[in-house]
């Protein structure tokens, strides 16, 4: 699809008059794109002796890597946890609508559901590249059902599960298979969790800790077994306590395997977490922050009653903002860090040479003016002049 020969003949586009996020800072540089990838203009100049085929003036805007949302339960009336005959259309609708929010890749998330739902829905959500049709699907995030009863939050009690004796087989039976699965959130204090974590990690699936009453020791062991993510830090877990920080303590734990970085999702809407708490977490471990929406089907719709999996949820206004860190940090938390979490940082979440050309054009207030996937304009604000 993106072979070297074909790419070399593709047109070269030069995005000028912009600031790009590269190496953790905003640089006054042009962004060069060819064949759906970020191009090294120096090589083009000296080795191929070519100039750009087309120049696009970005009006002084910021160009950041496309956002990656690893926790989104649905939106615009679509609920990923509903077993319908045509889950694909729902995913496609959300994939298309989130382009206007600058999201170029996402993990559709399923909350705790009965077996039938997993068996029916999972096969209908394949991994898919993004494009004009919508953001790319990186794989499904299964949040539950192997979570703590005390910390189930909005998840339905009836469908919570713990691991049976042959834990991993139990997992396979519950989900009906792990194709298309990218992340699994579970509570590590459940018996047999370690073998499950190890098996999932061995399959390349990211294991996340959440909806749990685990203490720090249990959490650390889970990380040693392979867990790399924390689902919505602070929410649905024991609060930070100075004698046992619980899962929150992983941010500064010295008992993590060497070279391993723990990532933590945060819903930065100012409601799920007090901005001061968000800042504490960010200052303690800035490189692990991953911004997620944990959006519900009501995203983009008005107030009223909406479904979330097997439950109904009241919606009363929506707020969202990023609190207390530099623009560059915030942008990395929404793009680079989720890419690193999923091991995709060579091609997603960055504007380095060779990466997929998935990026967003932002004004100084970080409003999305345009979204690009593989170098192609897939969404543009009404008033944008690009």
């Amino acid at each position, binding site marked *: 699809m993106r072979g070297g020969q074909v790419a070399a003949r593709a047109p070269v586009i030069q995005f000028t008059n912009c600031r790009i996020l590269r190496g953790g800072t905003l640089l006054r540089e*042009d962004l060069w794109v060819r064949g759906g990838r970020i191009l090294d*203009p*120096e090589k083009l*100049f*000296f080795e*191929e*002796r070519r*100039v750009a085929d087309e120049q696009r003036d970005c009006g002084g805007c910021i160009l950041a890597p496309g956002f990656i949302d690893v926790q989104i339960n649905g939106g615009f009336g679509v609920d990923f946890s509903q077993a319908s005959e045509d889950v694909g259309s729902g995913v496609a609708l959300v994939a298309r609508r989130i382009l206007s929010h600058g999201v170029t890749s996402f993990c559709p998330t399923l909350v705790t559901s009965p077996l039938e739902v997993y068996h029916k829905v999972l096969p209908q959500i394949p991994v898919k590249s993004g494009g004009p049709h919508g953001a790319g699907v990186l794989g499904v995030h299964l949040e539950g059902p192997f979570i703590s009863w005390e910390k189930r939050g909005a998840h339905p009690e009836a469908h919570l599960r713990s691991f049976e004796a042959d834990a991993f087989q139990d997992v396979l039976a519950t989900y009906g298979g792990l194709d298309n699965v990218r992340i699994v959130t579970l509570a590590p204090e459940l018996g047999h969790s370690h073998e499950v974590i190890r098996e999932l990690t061995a399959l390349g699936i990211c294991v996340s800790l959440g909806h749990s009453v685990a203490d720090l020791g249990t959490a650390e062991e889970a990380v040693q077994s392979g867990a790399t993510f924390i689902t919505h830090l602070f929410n649905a877990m024991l609060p930070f306590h100075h004698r046992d920080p619980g899962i929150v303590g992983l941010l500064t734990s010295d008992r993590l395997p060497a070279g391993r970085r723990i990532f933590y999702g945060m819903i930065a809407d100012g409601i799920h977490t007090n901005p001061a708490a968000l800042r504490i977490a960010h200052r303690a471990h800035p490189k692990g922050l991953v911004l997620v929406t944990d959006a519900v089907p009501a995203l983009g719709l008005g107030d009223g009653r909406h479904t979330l999996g097997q439950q109904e949820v009241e919606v009363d206004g929506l707020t969202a903002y990023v609190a207390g860190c530099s623009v560059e940090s915030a942008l990395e938390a929404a793009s680079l860090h989720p890419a690193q979490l999923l091991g995709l940082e060579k091609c997603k979440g960055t504007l380095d040479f060779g990466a997929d050309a998935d990026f967003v054009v932002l004004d100084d207030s970080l409003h999305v003016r345009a979204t690009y996937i593989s170098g192609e304009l897939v969404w543009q604000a009404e008033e944008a002049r690009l």
Partner: protein
Amino acid sequence: MKLIILDNYSQASEWAAKYIRNRIIQFNPGPDKYFTLGLPTGLPRDHPESYHSFMWNNFFKHIDIHPENTHILDGNAADLQAECDVFEEKIKAAGGIELFVGGIGPDGHIAFNEPGSSLVSRTRVKTLAMDTILANARFFDGDLAKVPTMALTVGVGTVMDAREVMILITGAHKAFALYKAIEEGVNHMWTVSAFQQHPRTVFVCDEDATLELKVKTVKYFKGLMLVHNKLVDPLYSIKEKEIEKSQSSKKPYSD
């Protein structure tokens, strides 16, 4: 020679930039009339601090020059001497260098024409002096073993063939070299002194670089700044030049 003395590095850089800009615009370049700008070259290509990277990041990426109109000596060429000879040919083919812009080393060298280089030398392979290797070490993590010991360089004679030469000298550590270059005789130990015999030379420097010059010299040239500043003020623009074309062009001041 014109000696232009500015207060500091920024002002000297800005003056030089404006001068080059005015020169290019007054030359009235076009598709059939190229303005050939010469710059000193040196290091091998592969290194991150290579001249290619340096030229790209500091010059080429900021302008719309076509790659085919850039010629950089390739330190990785199979036959280095042939590479040098071809470079000389390319300069001839381009109609000669209109303006050569260079700096000066603390040992008074121009490009990599170290002390002892022939004043009529052409583009060639040159062994670098220890001083230069030490100065370049900062580009190679301070590891002397990594610093190239050879470089391809334009010769003193090559630069002398340019129709105009501009030398930029800033900083107190260059002061002695500047003194040797303009107040002493022509000497192959201070190769920049060769330009005393060039019909059109401009030396642009800051106060610190004049520290070894006679007070008399500095005062003389500072006194000429009123006249010299007419070279950069008014600052021409391409658009205005289109309008002025019909009017009779004023010759730029020359001594």
